């Protein structure tokens, strides 16, 4: 009973952490989705120099720890931009670009996995290239990309914990503070459960999306 009361007592603080994590997460994931799809198309069909640039981008971003990217943003890029612009937008950019790098590769592979016959059917019908991409190829590749994109989305949610290192309020940082103050591990256990709930919700959402995108499959 005492534990329950304790949890209720610290729940407003926990909530602050959850909101912090979700703000960065959702702030990043939508731009990341748009960038990922767009970059994948450019990487498939864009001009050579742009494709090369995007290769460098996905190679660099996927090859460097997220934490380091965050540090570079906070202590390198933001000061360059005239003393800040704020940690929060900075963090969102880091996460968005990071997730976009993964999504780009996932989508590019998915576009490549669409049957050649689909392209030929479009050509024979005279459907222009961009119409073909948006009406025929992309819808089918999104479906192929959903499962790997789901695991990336879960990774990003967990990885968002690194913002605690640059002193932003998130689930991990908040529980850490409470634990140090109250000398109990209960906040950690709360964080444990909160993460499980959040990732399960994500899996659920992607499950629904997949269902929607495979409705046409028997």
């Amino acid at each position, binding site marked *: 009973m005492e534990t329950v009361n304790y949890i209720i007592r610290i729940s407003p603080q926990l909530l602050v952490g959850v909101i912090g994590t979700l703000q960065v997460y959702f702030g990043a994931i939508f731009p990341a989705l748009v960038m990922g799809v767009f970059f994948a198309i450019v990487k498939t069909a864009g001009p050579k120099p742009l494709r090369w640039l995007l290769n460098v981008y996905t190679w660099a971003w996927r090859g460097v720890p997220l934490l380091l990217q965050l540090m570079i943003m906070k202590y390198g890029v933001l000061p360059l931009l005239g003393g800040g612009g704020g940690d929060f937008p900075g963090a969102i950019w880091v996460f968005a670009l990071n997730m976009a790098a993964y999504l780009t590769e996932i989508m590019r592979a998915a576009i490549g996995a669409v*049957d050649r*016959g*689909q392209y*030929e*059917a479009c*050509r*024979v*019908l*005279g*459907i*222009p290239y961009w*119409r073909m991409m948006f*009406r*025929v190829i992309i*819808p*089918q590749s999104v*479906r192929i990309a959903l499962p790997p994109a789901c695991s990336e989305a879960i990774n990003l949610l967990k990885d968002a914990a690194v913002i605690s290192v640059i002193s932003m309020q998130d689930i991990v940082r908040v529980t850490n503070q409470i634990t140090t103050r109250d000398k109990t591990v209960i906040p950690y256990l709360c964080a444990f459960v909160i993460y499980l709930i959040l990732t399960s919700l994500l899996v659920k959402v992607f499950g629904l999306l997949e269902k929607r*995108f495979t*409705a*046409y*499959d*028997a």
Partner: protein
Amino acid sequence: MGEKTQVGAGARTGDGARADGGAQAGGGARDDTAEVIIRLTNLHKSFGELSVLQGVDLTVERGQVVSIIGPSGSGKSTVLRCVNGLEKIDRGVVEIEGVVVAAVGTPGAKPAPKEQIRAVLAKTGMVFQSFNLFPHMTALQNVIEAPMTVKKIPKARARELGMEKLRRVGLDDKADAFPSRLSGGQKQRVAIARALAMEPDFMLFDEPTSALDPELVGEVLDVIKSLAREHMSMMIVSHEMGFTREVSDRVIFVDNQKIVADNPPERFFNSPEHPRVAAFLDKMLN
């Protein structure tokens, strides 16, 4: 539409697809006024080191049904795919309705302006062995996608047109079904309706029944026969010898990178001149 029927009627006997000897008679004596719809001249094509076509010459007149047969890997699909530009030719000339759509290494022949080529290719329908329906669209959506995006036909009008084409292949009751819910024969009929929705001047069929279970072949061939009765110009690659014999005005045999025979079906099947054709028919029919 009207002029096609007239020329076609001259080029082939009225009901060649149904009557046994009808098509042959039509195939033999050609109308002088018949208009050439496809002309391939000295076509060469290789894939890397592999030479597939070496000097193919071929004409198809409006209203004609020309079948291409030959051993596997002899280049039948490649001929069709060179006609509509799915493959780039290495040498020769491809003309559709008098428009040069491809010309390589041939003095005096030069491709027409891009817009003209696009316009003439838009009147070229193709049906694939593997259907290539859009899996995320219903049968009707498959049929109306190109009319709406290419011809900018408004949705309501396109739906009417689509339903008409689906009715044409006997599938108006499946308009809202996704391809995964259709049998192979139904899928191929939707694919034919999709091609017809662009009101093509001629159609290319690349083994339209080869991916089908035997009991589903007939329904697709029936649709193609009905097109032949309406004097649709067609080039058909098929291994269905009975059908080929029945529907064709001319049968072409491709082997060793060349056309080795080009005859009316009766002569082709009854008295093959070329030993390779004889051997092939012997294998196919026995």
